[in-house]
C-alpha cells in the first residue's frame, strides 16, 4: 500500500509515524518542515478545553509526547508546569466555569484560582487585571524538536520526506484517488492525506473536494531572555493575550488570531502595540523587557471548531486538517486517528468531512 501525505507539520508527520510500519509512506512538503503553523506557534498545551472530543485528544496527546520522545530519542522540552486561563469579566469567567465542570467530569486536574492566588503563582502578576481564573494540567512544549523528533522517527521507519516539493495535482479517476503530481513528477498512491494546515482548502480543491475550513492568522513575539520566573502558560480568554517562558528564558507571547481570507504571514506594528498594552497590564514588571523578534503564522479550523479527519466522497482522499489553535495540543492523537481511518476504515462522526 502506498500513502502520500501532503504537509510535514505535526498532523502529517504523526500520521506518517503511525502508518510507517504498515505502508510505503511519502510526505510532500512545499517548503521545509516548520514553515507552517507547527513551526510558528507558542507551544502551549493543555486538556483544559471546551469539548469532550478535544479533551480526549489532548489527554492522549500528552501521553504520546511522553512516549514518542523516548522512541525517537529526541527531547521535546515538554515542561508540565501547568496552564492558567484567566478572565477579565464575569461572563468569561462563567464560560471557563462551564468548561471546568466538563473537564473535571473527564478526570482533568484543574481548579479555580482567585486573583491573589494567581499573584502568588506568577511573580509580578497584577491581581486587579483579572476577575479570576482556572489552573490545571498542561504546560509548554518546544514545537521545533517535536517536528524534528517525528521527522527523525519517520525516517528511521522508512518514510521518505520531500521538502521543497509542491503538489500541483491530485489525480482522481472514477471517484478514486490514483496518486499525485509534485514538481512535475507522478507518484502513485492508494491514499492521499491532506494535512496542509492553512493551505488545506487549496489542496482539497485539487481533488475536487470542497473543504471551506476557516483560515486564521495569528501574531507572536519574543522578549529577551530572563532567568525563569513564569511557570505556567498563561492565556487571558477575555482579550486573547497569552504568554509563557521558554526553556531558554525568553518570554514568548501573542494574541489569539482573527479570520483571514488567504494564508499570509506578514507582521504588524499594531500587534506589538496591543500585545505590549495587554501583557504589561497583566504583568507590569514586563514593561522594561524588549521585543527581539516578531512573526505571524496561519492555521485552519473546521467550521464548527473541531478538526476535519476522515475519508471524503473521493475514495482514498483523506482530510487531516482543521485542528485550529489546538495543533500542538491534539496533533499527536489526531495523527493516530488518521492511521485508523486508513488502516481500519474507521469513521469519526464528530470529525467527519461529511458533517457539514
Amino acid at each position, binding site marked *: 500500500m502506498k500513502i502520500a501525505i501532503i504537509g510535514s507539520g505535526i498532523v502529517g508527520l504523526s500520521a506518517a509515524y503511525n502508518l510507517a510500519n504498515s505502508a510505503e509512506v511519502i510526505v510532500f512538503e512545499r517548503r521545509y518542515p516548520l514553515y507552517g503553523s507547527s513551526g510558528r506557534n507558542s507551544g502551549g498545551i493543555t486538556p483544559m478545553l471546551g469539548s469532550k472530543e478535544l479533551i480526549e485528544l489532548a489527554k492522549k496527546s500528552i501521553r504520546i509526547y511522553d512516549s514518542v520522545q523516548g522512541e525517537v530519542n529526541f527531547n521535546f522540552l515538554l515542561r508540565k508546569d501547568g496552564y492558567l486561563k484567566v478572565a477579565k469579566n464575569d461572563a468569561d469567567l462563567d464560560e471557563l466555569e462551564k468548561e471546568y465542570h466538563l473537564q473535571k467530569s473527564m478526570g482533568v486536574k484543574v481548579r479555580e484560582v482567585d486573583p491573589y492566588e494567581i499573584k502568588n503563582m506568577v511573580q509580578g502578576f497584577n491581581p486587579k487585571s483579572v476577575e479570576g481564573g482556572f489552573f490545571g494540567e498542561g504546560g509548554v512544549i518546544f514545537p521545533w524538536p517535536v517536528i524534528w523528533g517525528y521527522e527523525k522517527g519517520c525516517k528511521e521507519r522508512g518514510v521518505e520526506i520531500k521538502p521543497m516539493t509542491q503538489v500541483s495535482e491530485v489525480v482522481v479517476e472514477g471517484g478514486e484517488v490514483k496518486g499525485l503530481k509534485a514538481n512535475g513528477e507522478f507518484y502513485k498512491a492508494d491514499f492521499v492525506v491532506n494535512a496542509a494546515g492553512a493551505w488545506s482548502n487549496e489542496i482539497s480543491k485539487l481533488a475536487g473536494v470542497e473543504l471551506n475550513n476557516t483560515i486564521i492568522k495569528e501574531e507572536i513575539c519574543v522578549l529577551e531572555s530572563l532567568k525563569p520566573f513564569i511557570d505556567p502558560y498563561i492565556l487571558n480568554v477575555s482579550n486573547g493575550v497569552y504568554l509563557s517562558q521558554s526553556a531558554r528564558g525568553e518570554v514568548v507571547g501573542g494574541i489569539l488570531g482573527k479570520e483571514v481570507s488567504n494564508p499570509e504571514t506578514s507582521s504588524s506594528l499594531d500587534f506589538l502595540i496591543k500585545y505590549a*498594552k495587554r501583557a504589561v497590564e497583566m504583568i507590569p514588571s514586563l514593561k522594561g523587557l524588549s521585543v527581539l523578534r516578531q512573526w505571524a503564522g496561519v492555521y485552519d479550523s473546521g467550521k464548527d471548531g473541531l478538526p476535519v479527519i476522515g475519508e471524503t466522497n473521493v475514495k482514498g482522499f483523506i482530510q487531516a486538517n482543521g485542528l485550529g489553535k489546538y495543533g500542538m495540543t491534539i496533533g499527536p492523537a489526531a495523527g493516530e486517528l488518521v492511521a485508523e481511518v486508513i488502516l481500519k476504515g474507521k469513521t469519526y462522526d464528530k470529525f467527519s468531512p461529511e458533517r457539514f
Partner: protein
Amino acid sequence: MVKDRKIVCRCEDLTEEEIIHAIEEGYDDIESLKRYTGATTGFCQGKGCLMHILRILAQKTGKSVDEIGITTQRPPVNPVPLYILMEGEEE
C-alpha cells in the same frame, strides 16, 4: 585547551564545530540550521553571527552564498522595550 573553540554566535554561545555538527546531522539549509542551533535567534538577531553561519554553510555544502540565501529578516530592527510600544495608538 580552548584553541579549537571558535565562537561564531556570542548570544547563544555556539562554536564553529557545533554549527558543522548540525550541518552534518542534516540541518543543511539556512532556515533549518537557524532553528536547530539557535543561531541568529538571540539578542543580536543575527547581526553578529549570520555572516559566519553563511560562510560555514557555504564551505560545508559547496553552495554559493546566493544559493543559500539568508534567513527571513523579522522586525524590529533593534530591540524595542514594551513600555515604548505601549505608547502607540491601537488601530
